[in-house]
């Protein structure tokens, strides 16, 4: 049966190379990953940036270069324009009797505190040699904005897995080939698994390639792939149901896109709801997937927490799977 399942996957993969919509769906996440990399300058860089004037004292510039990435500007106006850009940088301008810190206003408090801290050290003439403490960590090993964007990208890829399955089923329906498969020794379960494989392989592949492009080489890959695989289960169910219930590609794609609603709601709930209201999102497997991914991408995940999230994703998805399976089986008969 495994050979037959793989044969179904190989056929689907061949058809995918001949279907512009499928090519687009598979390639789009990679393009978005490149987009995040290109159009969000600085989010891959977690070091602190300090903007100084070129005519600032050499001693001050050298001191700051020890502790931050320093950018030099010809005038206060140039420095202000730089500070007003999207990424985080703190400007320092000497205004007698001391330095004034220029910020945009929406920076991470950590950056402002760090800039103030450096300024105090310089003003007081304290150097590394005078330090008695070992380390001060703000626990910002990975930029939070980047983590959120990448996490959203992963959930979008998972939604696209459902769309790939849905389009595959619509193709079978349009060509009237489900009956032809039903009179071969391939079991219905084998067919369902075979038709799901392209979604699984292409999505896990897209996740890996996107994370590599975005510089997440040292995350726990097993964790991220496990969360990806389990959270795909629900989109598979939606993919099969939409494929079987739709007569054309557009209707199927539109139906699967509705999955974005619980995905977007889960992300919004996780990010915006107060801690005491978080329980209102516990029903959504995407909430747990987003939470697990957030921990993994920011390198704060441990196996017990990830396994709890995976278990909840699986449990909720299984309930929906049990309810949906009779309808899927009937549609494939």
């Amino acid at each position, binding site marked *: 049966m495994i050979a*037959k399942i793989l044969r179904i996957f190989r*056929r689907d993969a061949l058809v995918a190379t001949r279907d512009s919509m499928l090519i687009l769906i598979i390639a789009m996440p990679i393009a978005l990953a490149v987009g995040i990399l290109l159009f969000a300058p600085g989010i891959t860089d977690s070091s602190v940036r300090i903007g100084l004037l070129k005519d600032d004292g050499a001693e001050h510039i050298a001191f700051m270069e020890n502790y931050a990435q320093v950018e030099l500007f010809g005038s206060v106006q140039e420095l202000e324009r730089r500070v007003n850009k999207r990424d985080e940088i703190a400007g320092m301008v000497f205004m007698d009797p001391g330095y004034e810190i220029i910020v945009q206003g929406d920076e991470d408090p950590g950056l402002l505190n760090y800039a103030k801290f450096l300024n105090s050290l310089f003003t007081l003439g304290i150097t590394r040699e005078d330090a008695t403490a070992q380390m001060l960590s703000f626990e910002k090993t990975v930029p939070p904005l980047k983590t959120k964007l990448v996490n959203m990208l992963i959930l979008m890829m998972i939604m696209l897995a459902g769309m790939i399955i849905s389009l595959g089923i619509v*193709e079978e329906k349009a060509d009237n080939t489900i*009956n032809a498969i039903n009179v071969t*020794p*391939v079991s219905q379960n084998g067919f369902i698994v075979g038709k799901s494989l392209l979604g699984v392989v292409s999505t896990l592949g897209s996740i890996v390639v996107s994370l590599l492009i975005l510089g997440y080489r040292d995350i726990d890959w097993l964790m991220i792939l496990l969360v990806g695989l389990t959270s795909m289960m629900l989109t598979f169910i939606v993919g099969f149901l939409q494929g079987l219930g739709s007569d054309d590609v557009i209707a199927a794609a539109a139906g699967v896109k509705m999955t974005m609603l619980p995905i977007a709601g889960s992300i919004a709930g996780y990010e915006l709801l107060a801690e005491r209201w978080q329980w209102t999102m516990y029903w959504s497997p995407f909430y747990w997937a987003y939470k697990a991914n957030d921990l993994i991408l920011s390198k704060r995940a441990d196996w017990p927490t990830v396994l709890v999230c995976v278990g909840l994703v699986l449990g909720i998805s299984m309930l929906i799977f049990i309810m949906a399976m009779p309808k899927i089986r009937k549609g494939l*008969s």
Partner: protein
Amino acid sequence: MITVRNLSHSYSKDGKMAVNDISFEIERGETFGFLGPSGAGKSTTQGVLTGLLKLQKGEVTVAGYDLNKVRNERFNKIGVSFEQSNVYSKLTALENLKYFADLFDVPTRDPHELLALVGLEGREKDRAGSFSKGMKHRLTFARSMINRPELWFLDEPTTGLDPAIAATIKDIIKEEKAKGTTTFLTTHNMYIADELCDRVAFIIDGEIRLIDTPRNLKQRFGQKLIEVEYIADSRPVKETLKTIDDGDRRKLAGIVTSYDIVTMHSKEATLEEIFIQVTGRGLL
């Protein structure tokens, strides 16, 4: 090869039966025709026998497998050619056959040979989506032979084909019969049934009215007829007269002596005429 006992099937819960308590047997190597008009229950019966429809009531064994115990391996022995062609548009003719060949557990036929057999040689690398309706139908027919079936279900195998291709298809069916393949032929084309089938069953309103060989049916129900066309009052007149009816025989003698005969043919009753006689309904 097929045993059906008291098979009933309904699509609704109101007690209306699409197939009602039918029973028949088909011997190994036999070509069995299932004749009836649209909605008579032909497709439902074939759907149950091929496993596409769940067996609701009755006892059915197909190729040695009891349909109450679902075993997909039985499809290794079965080939099904559907009335509505069903091939992958985005795959070439050759890829279609190779794909299905890989889904069986038994030695399969060479796809090139099958494509040549149905007149699709030279079109192996063309995508099925670019094929005409007739070509898709031939590809569907070729696919049904890929696993060298012992039992072959054919649903309207020549519908929509031009006469030359239809003749080729009929020849293939005869060749397979000569090899010992059992064929279950569903059709409303009485000429095909008459030419190919060892026995035919007439089904109407979900019930089998009669099962026999075409020859026996003609002997039992057929009447020798004479079709005569003659000129009367400068106008052509056409009449069909029974040779066993005294009145018709006298009338025929009168026509021959009194009018100019244009054409005159003796004619056997067709299966369609016998079907109408038995069921009171036409095949279309």
